[in-house]
């Protein structure tokens, strides 16, 4: 098994540390916070200066203040909220479908040694096929309809989820499974009380990886194919020379990405509070 997932990486292993604690004391933390704010200010001020002084052509990089002015102007317009909604919806629906499909298929394949061996070569072959290879196909079939984005998002996120779920189901302690069988647990009870708790950390990893990939493909579909959403608006803004608006949209999409990451982390904390990797992060 290769170290594919984040849960398998060494840093998430719980580690007893007899060292004296020097981290996470409050003055240190507030110092870090101020440094972080400082870092953001440096980047913003730096970009503003590069543009104002003309070191970088302001036609390509407008001052940050102009980007934010464009951003606030956008907030008052209906098309912006419409596009934002479509992007988020496309992402969420695609991700949900990929999760559902990946978990079900992964559970079925993972529970049977025969199926696992029978499908492994196919999974290994299909997984690395880049989902962008499907772009011309979906254009032919769906054109600029949301289904185009849906297919790309599901295809890309599905493999991430499937592989993680397979790892998770394979990680179930065989003794626990045998014990459950010897007590004549039904398949549903085994799934719920034996497989699910073991596989949950993997499912959360699947969610984290899938969420990021789904957003990438949703934006790609909008930008490249022209499916309605922020990505399409971004393409339009750029080709019509509305440079501050272009940057404003990039910033908005970036913040969606940040929001997705925060959401994932929140869910992970909630679902896995008992898991060592989460606990050690807090300690």
């Amino acid at each position, binding site marked *: 098994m290769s170290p594919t997932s984040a849960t398998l990486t060494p840093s998430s292993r719980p580690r007893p540390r007899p060292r*004296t604690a020097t981290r996470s*004391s409050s003055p240190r933390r507030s110092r870090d916070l101020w440094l972080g704010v400082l870092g953001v200010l440096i980047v913003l001020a730096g970009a503003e200066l590069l543009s104002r002084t003309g070191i970088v052509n302001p036609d390509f990089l407008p001052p940050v203040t102009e980007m934010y002015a464009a951003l606030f102007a956008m907030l008052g317009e209906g098309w912006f909220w419409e596009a934002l909604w479509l992007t988020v919806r496309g992402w969420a629906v695609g991700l949900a479908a990929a999760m559902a499909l990946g978990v079900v298929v992964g559970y079925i394949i993972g529970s049977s040694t025969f199926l696992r061996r029978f499908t492994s070569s196919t999974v290994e072959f299909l997984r690395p096929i880049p989902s962008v290879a499907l772009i011309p196909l979906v254009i032919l079939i769906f054109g600029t309809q949301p289904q185009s984005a849906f297919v790309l998002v599901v295809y890309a996120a599905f493999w991430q989820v499937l592989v993680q779920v397979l790892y998770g189901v394979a990680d179930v302690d065989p003794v626990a499974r045998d014990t459950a069988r010897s007590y004549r647990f039904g398949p549903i009870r085994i799934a719920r009380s034996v497989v699910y708790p073991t596989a949950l950390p993997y499912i959360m990893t699947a969610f984290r990886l899938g969420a990021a990939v789904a957003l990438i493909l949703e934006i790609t579909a909008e930008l490249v194919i022209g499916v309605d959403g922020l990505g399409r608006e971004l393409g339009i803004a750029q080709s019509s020379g509305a440079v501050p608006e272009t940057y404003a949209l990039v910033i908005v999409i970036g913040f969606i990405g940040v929001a997705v990451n925060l959401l994932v982390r929140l869910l992970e904390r909630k679902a896995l509070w008992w898991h060592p990797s989460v606990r050690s992060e807090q300690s």
Partner: protein
Amino acid sequence: MTFTTLLSGRSAKAPEAPATDVALDLRNVQKTYDTPGRPEVEAIRNLDFRINRGELVCVVGPSGAGKTTLLRSIAGLLDLTAGEVVLDGTPVTGPPDGMAVVFQEYGRSLFPWMTVRQNVELPLKEKGVPKAERKAKAERALAEVSLTEAADQHPWQLSGGMQQRVAIARAVAYEPTVLLMDEPFAAVDAQTRAELEDLVRSLWKHLGVTVLFVTHDIDEAVYLGERVVVLSNRPTVLMEDVSVDLPAERDQLTTRSDPRFGELRGHVYSLIQKAKAGHRPDEDQEA
């Protein structure tokens, strides 16, 4: 206090013989952890003792006595609050030249991406030892710990006891003035432990290296050491510096059944019990 003072009085005589050649000198060492935003923790109040060249000294103390803090301070991995550690006449400010450390966590102190031989040779490379000599030294050190055959394996392919032997070989090949060992055998099984103890004794005897051996195991301390430094509980001071007057030739069977071994062991044990109960020599003097 009769027994204690009697014994400590006697052991105090031994180091008074003109300190011929001091390898490691701890002068009023103090360590207080002062992390901003946290209550200060006084780990070591005052430690003052010295180790002569070629001696094997064990340090024991109740758990939480700051043994590891002491060792990390000596190794130059921690800054002292006051006092100084002098190695070979030079005060220690960072990890000093001429000191090698064997950590308790053998699995984590060996570089898993290197073979056993590469692990042993790396510090020599840093020292600038020429290639042929480096190879010979590593070869010899591995032979000392009888791991010649395992030289091209990776540490994680070996058992726990073998891994710790690799760490010892690495330290020995470095030819340090002082070898520091931080509870090196706490994580291996009892039989392996006995073997490793004998290995340390024999290496010490025929390489003439100075060893400071930190342990929580009283038997181990008495069996290995020429002296046993007993620490109080936190904040740490010296409980007593016990000299071990057992014959130089030791083995697991006869030494451990020697009545003198039993006495010393009992004495150190009672010191530790007192230390655990909060008995402190510095407060006794005040009282």
